[in-house]
């Protein structure tokens, strides 16, 4: 162990190129993961926040919030189902908003709701909204009146809420009546009359999915997690980015394996001598693993710092979101790949015969 660390300290140049390559790879892993997280979190916040045991759509909507339309008759039927405790309407409208004093419009998702989701207070007064804190980047302040859509419907921002965005647009949480007023003023083709909502948020016990759909005959009910995954692109983005991330990890493994097997090859004579004077295979291999982990950790620290700089440099339109969880995952994945990669040298270290030290060590 000491020998491995001493070599790292005294001959750092030997490990420089491997560190640079791993730094690039850790930067890549963080950027890829950050994009995946940014796309996921920015699209699903409003649904993840729901304190719901089931979300009910109209059967014809194919689990799309914007295409779903439920009348008060359906709501009555859902409320009458055994096990249903609370039912609340929910509706979304995606619009541009004029922010006072700003030239650029802000993208907003107006969310009409009845049952307060986690982290969102009970509905505000009519014409007022709780706004997602990401709107601060668009220049919005508490007390501002935003003008929504072509009809310039005014909405006053009362307070901030966090992580409640929908399809990359900042959430504005309003009463159902305010939502209907905004929707009807700006989207006459998607007019909603009194009592109509897009979906129903249900709290209760038991197998709500099948009992609700059986009772109504015209609905499709999902759990909250299923509703999140049913959002456009969420599953596809996750599978595509994860495939790229895990392929990149395979490259990390190959690079570490390649580098340390070459290094081991170079040290065969030295290892022969060390074995001859009593060093165990375990101790020698442990040294290789320690070096691989140290190189990976240094690469991660530099790569992580670079990722934070890239995050600052990229425009706000790029949905990059570097979370603590992503840093932790990347760190763990890099260390595991480094350990596994260095294990490729194990066979060679094991096969070294101490007798070879006689006359061959350099």
């Amino acid at each position: 162990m000491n020998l491995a660390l001493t070599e790292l300290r005294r001959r750092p140049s030997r490990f420089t190129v491997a560190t640079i390559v791993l730094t690039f790879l850790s930067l890549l892993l963080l950027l890829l993961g950050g994009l995946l997280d940014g796309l996921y979190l920015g699209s699903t916040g409003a649904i993840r926040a729901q304190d719901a045991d089931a979300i009910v759509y109209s059967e014809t909507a194919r689990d799309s919030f914007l295409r779903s339309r439920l009348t008060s008759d359906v709501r009555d039927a859902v409320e009458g189902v055994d096990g249903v405790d609370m039912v609340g309407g929910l509706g979304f409208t995606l619009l541009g908003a004029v922010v006072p004093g700003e030239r650029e419009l802000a993208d907003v998702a107006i969310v009409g709701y009845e049952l307060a989701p986690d982290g969102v207070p009970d509905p505000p007064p009519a014409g007022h909204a709780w706004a997602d804190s990401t709107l601060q980047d668009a220049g919005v302040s508490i007390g501002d009146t935003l003008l929504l859509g072509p009809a310039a419907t005014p909405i006053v921002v009362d307070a901030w809420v966090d992580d409640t965005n929908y399809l990359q647009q900042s959430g504005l949480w309003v009463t159902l009546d305010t939502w209907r007023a905004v929707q009807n003023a700006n989207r006459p083709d998607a007019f909603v009359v009194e009592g109509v909502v897009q979906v129903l948020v249900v709290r209760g016990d038991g197998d709500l999915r099948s009992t609700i759909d059986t009772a109504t005959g015209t609905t499709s009910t999902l759990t909250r997690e299923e509703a999140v995954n049913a959002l456009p692109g969420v599953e596809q983005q996750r599978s595509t980015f994860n495939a790229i991330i895990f392929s990149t990890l395979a490259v990390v493994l190959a690079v570490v394996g390649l580098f340390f097997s070459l290094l081991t090859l170079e040290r065969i004579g030295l290892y022969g001598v060390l074995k001859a004077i009593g060093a165990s295979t375990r101790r020698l291999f442990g040294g290789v693993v320690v070096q691989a982990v140290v190189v990976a950790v240094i690469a991660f620290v530099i790569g992580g710092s670079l990722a934070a700089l890239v995050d600052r440099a990229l425009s706000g339109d790029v949905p990059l979101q570097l979370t603590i969880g992503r840093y932790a995952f990347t760190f763990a994945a890099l260390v595991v790949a480094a350990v596994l990669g260095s294990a490729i040298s194990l066979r060679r270290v094991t096969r070294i015969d101490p007798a070879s030290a006689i006359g061959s060590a350099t």
Partner: protein
Amino acid sequence: MSPAGALCHSDGVFLALNEMRRAKVRFGLLAGAVGLLVFLILFQQALLSGLVNQFIGALKNQSADVLVYNSQARKNLEGSIILPDQQAAIETVDGVAVSAPLGEGTFTVIAGDEEQDAVVFGYRLGGPGEPTTLIEGRLPEVPGEAVASSRNAEDGFDIGDTVELVPNLGGVATTFQVVGLAEEINYSVSPVLFVDFADYEAARRGVNPDATDVLPSVIAVRVADGAVAEQVAGAISEAVDGTEALTRQQAVDGSPGVASVRQSFSVILLLFYLVVPLVTGLFFLIVTFQKAGALTLLRAIGSPAGTLVRSLLIQVVIVVLAGAALATVLFWLTARGGAGGLGITVEPKPVIATTLAVLVLSLLTSLAAARRVLRIDPIAATTGAGVQV
């Protein structure tokens, strides 16, 4: 090796191949790493192109020179509506030859006996906004007919197929017969139907019987002969309050997500392009250090430095080409698997271009190893020294 003992020029190949044969795992691991990296580059390039084409194909391949959005929509077709007075004002702007409504919406349809999502574009038949990449059949001539995206022909959108838009409670179903197929007209990675605007209106009312009005998403404009689309777009934006007119290309480039997807992928691809030559350069640099003694000896017995460098470069070429071959196979398998319905296809041009770029970059980074070889002093063979660090 030449009979005289020293290596001649042709022995560079012999030396390179012989060494690779004897260290299959080492070179195999490198070729595998390069292969995976090149595969990731190819896949992401295709993904970017597939994403962009399948997200905005319908905008790119329609006939309007200029599309007029509501300025509140931020170039988002889904979020745009044009009010009747805006439409009337657009018609009067200089340079506008023809203007017509263009509506867009995503609907649940039954096609091929299955419920699917489909995006419907409603345009005035014969007017601007019609698909321009018809490859089979004809354009719609009367209401009830549609041109579908050729990519989805096998999913129930082929010529002669009937597609039914599923209505919501209280609404009336709208049906279309597919009379033509156009390529690269997908939108939001969904099947697309280009239909008469009246059919689009009926479809909207079918899913929302409470709709008070169905307004066009944008106005499609054909500019007058001799007029420049960009100038006409500028004139419309200036003359008609609350609108943002864009040329077709501006509409494509400005579509939500397109610019940010391009920017994100550019950064990632740049990093991948840097990593491949770095890995290759690192490998050959280390190998050169390890072979220092043998290389010095070869130089001492008369082998020209050029031959040793050539041997090194031949190995770089073989490793990169083997990696590229592996990458192409992986890419082909991924494309065959469907790759998330993005229609990724293996095309020779990007594969060859990527391979050449990676090869050139790898050869450049391997010059560090070549430089070490050139710096070998044959006299060092008598002292036991190898490559100078």
